């Protein structure tokens, strides 16, 4: 299956590839035959706002926050958004970039700060009291485009009193003058189980409530996910927070945290509870707004790889997964990479520090292809037009571009390890059956 790679937004070009299709979503009507229909981007903002259900007594029976469905709900939300970006950009391999906010305030040894507030996404808002927090630069500044330009960044979905322009007030919230630290992330990733009763914002332990940011409770300041919203401030503070495109970079990293937590705790249930949470938050409950037609449950989205995407820190290719030209895998420590070149059409195993080639597939000047980890354990570069059987076994081609010739190892999978070796492991990982360089 096609696996889209979600990259760190700080790598060259990733933010640019994100911004342009976002502007195109703002310019696209959700119903092409109705000129008065909302634009596609605003549909996402409205869907997020609609998760709120404040009862007359003040309780919010929220579909997406303050409960276990926080992670799966946002996973579906981001996946839908990503597929729209792919559609409007014409790039089916476009992956949402993530903002690893934990590195942005840390001393060494974190050499790659991930600060997204640049000339493209725009920076901090104005301190002018008449337009407090108004973002004045970048593609999403209100004044960057004239009235009537369909890409003009107008906030059409607003809570009471919100301005029609994008606002940011970085570090202004006295409860969140700094971003969460790597230690905060590690504390959340160490927490088990996934969630605990009463499965809401008062849960005193568990990964979900730690990562969402309600532990410890007020008057302690917000933590982890919540803290980033408060730190950015302005349009990121209300329920309409997807009005700021940085919302998607932020939540992409939050989704990665759930994937990382699952990888760290293979002995833990990936989601809890099966019962006992409010409706919409149990494993088998349908999650509004996808409860009426699409019928999506947390159960359906536990494994992100099965949804067709991976994060750039994941150093393996599983049976049935593909690597397209221009995509790569990093070793866990990011010292080595396996790139399927989009011009040379060669698999390159490279040491990143000095660009030394450790191995290559010797397939120069071959026609376009894609690398496929077959379910029988053979690693193959097929010609691009060989049909994919959509979960019904491996593709068939008598003369592929390249192959490891290792069939007979069902369930085998590819790993790029921290020693710079490309290794095919048997199912379960107990032993290997192929490696390069040999």
């Amino acid at each position: 299956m096609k696996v889209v790679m979600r990259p760190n937004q700080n790598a060259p070009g990733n933010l640019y590839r994100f911004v342009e299709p976002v502007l195109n979503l703002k310019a696209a009507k959700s119903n092409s035959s109705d000129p008065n229909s909302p634009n596609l981007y605003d549909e996402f903002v409205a869907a997020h706002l609609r998760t709120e259900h404040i009862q007359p007594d003040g309780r919010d029976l929220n579909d997406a926050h303050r409960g276990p469905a926080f992670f799966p709900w946002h996973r579906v939300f981001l996946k839908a958004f990503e597929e729209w970006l792919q559609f409007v950009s014409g790039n089916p391999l476009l992956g949402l970039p993530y903002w690893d906010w934990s590195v942005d305030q840390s001393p060494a040894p974190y050499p790659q700060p991930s600060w997204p507030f640049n000339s493209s996404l725009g920076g901090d808002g104005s301190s002018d009291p008449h337009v407090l927090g108004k973002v004045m630069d970048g593609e999403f500044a209100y004044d960057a485009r004239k009235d009537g330009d369909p890409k003009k960044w107008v906030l059409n979905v607003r809570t009471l009193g919100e301005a029609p322009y994008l606002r940011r007030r970085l570090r202004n919230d006295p409860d969140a003058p700094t971003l969460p630290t790597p230690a905060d992330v590690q504390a959340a990733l160490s927490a088990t189980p996934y969630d605990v009763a009463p499965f809401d914002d008062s849960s005193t332990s568990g990964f979900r409530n730690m990562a969402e940011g309600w532990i410890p409770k007020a008057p302690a300041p917000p933590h982890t996910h919540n803290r980033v919203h408060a730190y950015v401030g302005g349009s990121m503070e209300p329920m309409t927070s997807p009005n700021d495109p940085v919302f998607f970079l932020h939540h992409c990293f939050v989704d990665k945290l759930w994937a990382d937590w699952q990888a760290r705790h293979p002995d833990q249930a990936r989601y809890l509870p099966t019962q006992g949470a409010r409706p919409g938050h149990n494993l088998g409950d349908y999650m509004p707004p996808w409860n009426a037609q699409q019928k999506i449950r947390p159960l359906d989205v536990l494994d992100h790889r099965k949804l067709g995407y991976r994060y750039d820190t994941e150093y393996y290719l599983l049976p049935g997964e593909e690597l397209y030209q221009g995509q790569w895998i990093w070793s866990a420590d990011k010292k080595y990479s396996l790139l399927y070149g989009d011009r040379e059409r060669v698999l390159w195993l490279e040491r990143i520090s000095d660009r030394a080639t450790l191995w290559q597939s010797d397939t120069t000047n071959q026609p376009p292809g894609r690398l496929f980890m077959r379910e029988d354990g053979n690693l193959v570069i097929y010609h691009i037009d060989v049909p994919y059987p959509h979960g019904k076994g491996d593709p068939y081609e008598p003369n592929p571009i390249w192959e490891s010739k290792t069939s007979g190892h069902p369930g085998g999978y590819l790993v790029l390890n921290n020693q710079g070796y490309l290794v095919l492991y048997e199912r379960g990982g107990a032993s290997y059956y192929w490696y390069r360089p040999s």
Partner: protein
Amino acid sequence: MARVQESHKGHDIVIEEPTVGGERRVLEEEAQEEEPRLSQERRVLEEEAQEEEPRLPQEFRLFIPAVGGERRVLEEEAQEEEPRLAQGPRLFIDEQPIKVIRNSDGTYSSEGVFYTSYPTLLDLARASIDIHLPEG
């Protein structure tokens, strides 16, 4: 109904909070009586869920634009219950009503300051002014 009025950085805060009495206790008891019915329904769903394999949607892209046309089942259920629920607190800043959220742990947030919780309504009101409004 208890009423608090205060000024913060040139902005007016008004809090109206219902006094908790017998009425709310009765409502809470009624809510507790309903629990077994909900739990039973959930158990059936969960047993079904556990028997099923996860279903993998082929295309998520179609999800969002369809949202506007859907009726939300849970919301309809909640609306049926509304008349029996106690009245929550009300907050006004410069005469504008603020959508207050009473969190499960007894703290407060709002639609406008959604990701932070505050021990009291007054703390929430002051923070809303600090975060969103220029000095009045």
